[in-house]
């Protein structure tokens, strides 16, 4: 059982990295007390999903998705899909990175506003102040 487990991990370690990063981000969002730490955890959670998407598009032995041969004359050799990496997840992840920065900006703006109101970024201190 051990060898087969190892070869399975060796072949899928990228997806394991995704799961580990996602768990780090989720743990930080739930268990961390400081609001900025929660925002860092949220960002790690989002980049983990981006890592998952990009590794779905990876192909062993394929080059980057830019067709080079157009310059040496206009000979249209046949383009084989297996030679180039799948461009669709890259497009989707450009969107996801931009969305994560937008969410980061709004979250930091809200964190500054919360700080100006309660004087602290710690969740338990804020809850204490709310009870008064």
């Amino acid at each position: 059982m051990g060898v087969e487990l190892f070869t399975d991990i060796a072949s899928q370690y990228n997806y394991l990295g995704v799961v580990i990063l996602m768990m780090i981000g989720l743990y930080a969002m739930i268990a961390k007390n400081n609001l900025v730490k929660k925002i860092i955890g949220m960002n790690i959670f989002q980049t983990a999903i981006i890592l998952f998407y990009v590794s779905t598009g990876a192909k062993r032995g394929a080059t980057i998705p830019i067709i080079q041969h157009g310059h040496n004359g206009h000979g249209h050799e046949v383009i084989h899909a297996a030679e180039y990496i799948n461009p669709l997840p890259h497009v989707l992840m450009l969107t996801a990175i931009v969305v994560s920065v937008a969410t980061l900006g709004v979250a930091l703006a809200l964190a500054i506003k919360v700080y100006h109101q309660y004087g602290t970024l710690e969740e338990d201190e804020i809850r204490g102040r709310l009870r008064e």
Partner: protein
Amino acid sequence: MIWELDFIILTLVIFSGIAAITVKDLLSAAILFGAYSFMMCLLWAIMGAVDVAFTEATVGAGVSTVFFVAAVFHTTRNSKD
């Protein structure tokens, strides 16, 4: 795609992620988060996702860290946990 390099960068990414969360000082957490994004950008580049690597470098390592530092500048640097 050299999988050994990919494996090393992935472990570096996970370590900088854990460090960015556990360190107490928020400013160094922001800088560590910048390092985390930069490692992520290397990971994309190795996996052949060049456009995503470029975006992660500019947006993730660049502007997010500036926003984080600006926010920490207006709140506190020390955090309890």
